[in-house]
């Protein structure tokens, strides 16, 4: 709730909403007239509206030359440019991702033809949306984020970047760069080339990338904004983030942490799959699994020194109990910790960039990533 959200330190000024969850409420919001920020009781937050929810991938094959679909709880919502802009007019977010053809992802070997189509369609959607924006005073108060497409075809990626950059967009979303470690090098190479084509004075967002190690790779290649679904997934599997991002600790603390890290890694089975309600994701080495029996009598906080509400007030033993008894509070407390931890990580990134110590931070994260 708002109450528990605001106990989190380091809360970012901007939150992400997804069209997939909001499109069905278009009518009510249009009648409300005052925009989604006020509707959800968070008028003070900047809001960015993406098309999809990074945690719920949507079925492919539904993008046409004229429309894109999102999936809400009630089913598919098909949107032409005008319907899309009508919805955004009701939502009134500060930024929104433009309608785009995001079906082509770096992962699969894309045909050049399909990659070209994704770029062409997205540019056409962008131009249509910009034109519609011109005609509406309400819509002009929002910034449209242009979407860079093109799959894994370098030529198309560059074309998409250059062409999108020519339009009066508020920023850029780098789409289709998520994927498994196997294709990482290619994706990162593409990413560098793309951001090189983008103006320095507009923000670059990326979707589908949220893990600490991947985040750092993208930041090095010019990305500014990320989705925060990683801490959410960690919470959903009953885990707590424990990785260290303190790249300039005092010597005693380093020793303690190193011992701590080694202990955790010893117990983490890399290939352990934990089935959860909404994500069949593998647990990473950045976290501990509070369901494990060894936490039953562990009266330490989740992370020693963490200033979140959960760590200041509760123990691992209590969280373990809540998870074992399927209590709702488990998720609430874990989410509070995981968000605070994650936002703390980003704070340390910003500090590291300012003091030119990103390499140290990267090394620290890399050591914990295996």
């Amino acid at each position, binding site marked *: 709730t708002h109450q*528990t959200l605001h106990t989190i330190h380091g809360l970012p000024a901007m939150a992400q909403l997804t069209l997939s969850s909001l499109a069905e409420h278009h*009518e009510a919001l249009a009648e409300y007239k005052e925009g989604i920020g006020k509707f959800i009781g968070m008028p003070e937050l900047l809001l960015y509206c993406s098309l999809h929810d990074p945690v719920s991938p949507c079925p492919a094959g539904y993008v046409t030359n004229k429309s894109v679909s999102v999936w809400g709880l009630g089913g598919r919502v098909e949107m032409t440019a005008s319907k899309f802009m009508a919805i955004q007019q009701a939502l009134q977010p500060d930024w929104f991702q433009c309608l785009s053809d995001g079906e082509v992802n770096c992962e699969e070997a894309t045909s050049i033809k399909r990659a070209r189509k994704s770029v062409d369609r997205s540019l056409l959607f962008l131009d249509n949306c910009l034109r519609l924006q011109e005609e509406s005073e309400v819509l002009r108060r929002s910034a449209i984020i242009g979407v860079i497409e093109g799959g894994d075809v370098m030529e198309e990626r560059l074309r998409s970047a250059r062409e999108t950059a020519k339009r009066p967009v508020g920023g850029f979303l780098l789409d289709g760069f998520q994927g498994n470690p196997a294709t990482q090098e290619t994706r990162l190479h593409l990413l560098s080339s793309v951001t090189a084509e983008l103006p320095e004075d507009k923000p670059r967002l990326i979707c589908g990338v949220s893990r600490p190690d991947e985040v750092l790779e993208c930041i090095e290649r010019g990305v500014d904004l990320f989705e925060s679904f990683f801490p959410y997934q960690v919470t959903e599997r009953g885990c707590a983030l424990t990785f260290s991002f303190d790249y300039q600790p005092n010597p005693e603390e380093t020793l303690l942490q190193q011992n701590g890290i080694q202990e955790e890694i010893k117990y983490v089975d890399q290939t352990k799959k934990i089935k959860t309600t909404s994500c069949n994701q593998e647990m990473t080495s950045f976290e501990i699994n509070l369901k494990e029996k060894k936490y039953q009598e562990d009266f330490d906080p989740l992370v020693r020194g963490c200033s979140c509400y959960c760590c200041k*007030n509760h123990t691992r033993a209590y969280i373990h*109990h809540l998870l074992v008894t399927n209590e709702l509070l488990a998720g*609430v407390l874990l989410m509070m910790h995981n968000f605070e931890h994650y936002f703390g990580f980003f704070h340390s990134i910003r500090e590291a960039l300012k003091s030119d110590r990103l390499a140290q931070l990267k090394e620290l994260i890399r050591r914990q990533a295996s």
Partner: protein
Amino acid sequence: SWVRLCEECSRSRARAGELRLPPGPGATPVFMPVGTQATMKGITAEQLDALGCRICLGNTYHLGLRPGPELIQKAHGLHGFMNWPHNLLTDSGGFQMVSLVSLSEVTEEGVRFRSPYDGDETLLSPEKSVEIQNALGSDIIMQLDDVVSSTVTGPRVEEAMYRSIRWLDRCIAAHQRPDKQNLFAIIQGGLDADLRTTCLEEMTKRDVPGFAIGGLSGGESKGQFWRMVALSTSRLPKDKPRYLMGVGYATDLVVCVALGCDMFDCVFPTRTARFGSALVPTGNLQLKKKQYEKDFRPIDNDCACPTCQKHSRAFLHALLHSDNTAALHHLTVHNIAYQLQLMSAVRASIVEKRFPDFVRDFMGTMYGDPTLCPTWATEALASVGITLS
């Protein structure tokens, strides 16, 4: 451990007072939210504290199984384990005899339960129940009583009543921490006035810090319910708190305060929240319904809770139709606030000597016309001198 303020309604039997317990004071009449497994269903301790809650419930049966009394003792008691700085009341596990009746068997020794989690058998005796509650460290502990459903008739009711008295004595004998934890007796006797009277006579001979009225709020008719409550309060000492277990709905709370009860608990407000229902002075709002889709008002304009301060019915409606649990938390916060605010208002009216007017206002808001108020409530109130029209 309980102080009765001088304020006593001159018409009815309503009283205002204050519990004086080690963690801190708690005003009465009071509604105690139920946090069965050392948590208030998705609400943090901080949120509960901010709502003004100063006493809530834990459940000995559940906590005794998971995580177990030894672990909780290591965690500095239930207060330490859940980090609750205010008062706690634990019930003895007796109610589970009714709610989990297919898994339990009662003998003079105690209640034998088969665990739903691993099939293991546990014996919950009066001694064992007190032992667990001693480990939990709650401020008010309940005797183990032989509970029968209020719809049961025949010799079983009498057997249970007499056994509860014997078990009370065993609990008193087994209690290791009478200086820190207050053991309450539980009056049984079902819906039989004679049995209940006998139980009252016997149990009030024992010097316990407080009395609960048990065995009601099951499937019995409201007519029988209020008469048993009234009978009980008429025979309980005035200088000790009366805890009516398992009540409940707003109307019941108001009527039973008039009948002389001080403390109440019920899962209803928190449970109904999880079904999308918000409590209001006129009843409840089923927020999942389409009529709330574009209703931009808060649940209740006069409610001071965080949910009503920030959110509209339309927003909660939309949230209830999404796949995350936030709506349930918002509604749980509101429903607890509603119950606590109601009790505060009741108490203020008693202290300010206008309780009968409060009752009339309350009934008017809830039912429209005094004549539309349920018969049982009208009769119960009349029996203590409060007329509605």
